[in-house]
């Protein structure tokens, strides 16, 4: 191990921490909902506040419970989305690649602007 190796590792970890901090700051804890897209096209938006079960095109089953969304079932071979932990924070997402299904959490309201330059 050379000194440069540690510098490289430290630099990457620092970048990771900064990005994480930035993501956490952006999370405002407001009313949340999940946006479901299939093959890049919007399938629907569902509030995280109410418990519900959503059938996504017959290939995936999304369950919203206690303010968290979880992929309950999928017909894909790898089952990565099913094993994924429940999501609730702004920007978190569950992706089922074989079925091209993406579930992402977003703040319910349109993001407020800090200011607009005219």
């Amino acid at each position: 191990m050379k000194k440069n190796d540690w510098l490289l590792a430290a630099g990457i970890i620092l970048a990771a921490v900064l990005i994480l901090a930035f993501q956490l700051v952006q999370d405002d804890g407001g009313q949340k909902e999940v946006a479901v897209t299939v093959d890049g096209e919007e399938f629907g938006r569902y509030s995280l506040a109410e418990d519900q079960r959503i059938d996504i095109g017959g290939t995936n089953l999304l369950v919203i419970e206690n303010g968290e969304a979880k992929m309950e079932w999928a017909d894909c071979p790898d089952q990565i989305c099913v094993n994924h932990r429940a999501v609730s924070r702004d920007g978190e997402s569950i992706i089922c690649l074989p079925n091209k299904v993406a579930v992402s959490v977003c703040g319910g309201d349109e993001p407020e602007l800090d200011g607009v330059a005219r």
Partner: protein
Amino acid sequence: MRNRAAFFGVFTALALILSYVETLIPINFGIPGAKLGLANLVTVIVLYKTDWKEALLLSAVRVVLAGFIFGSLFSILYSLAGAILSLSAMALLKKTGLFSTAGVSIAGGVSHNMGQLIVAMLVVETYQVGYYLPALLAAGTATGLLIGIVSQGVLKRIQSLHFT
């Protein structure tokens, strides 16, 4: 030179076996795409013992074969993007001569994850996967460091062997 094909076959087999061993390790990092990258061990060693062209060919062959045996067409697409980016980064870093095997391997691990993330963004057509960026950066550093240290140990012991 006439042994080149034979060595290449042996390394491909070794990389495939490591890919298989990896599927047996039930470590779930909680992040899709994060794994140990055991097969990268062979890539790093070949990169140091021969040249980047050989290592690139080996990664490509390994990814395609492992994809057909243990994965799916999707996993080939991801791994290929990761492998190519990873090898480019490793070859460049090795060329600068500023880093040891560990540093080169860390760059490889991290850029492998970046490659996969980029493909995921393109396939799913959402930028939300960027959420995993910090986790994948950290995971790539950790696994890259581990693989780099092991590679260093192996390379030290096979100094007298020449594969070209």
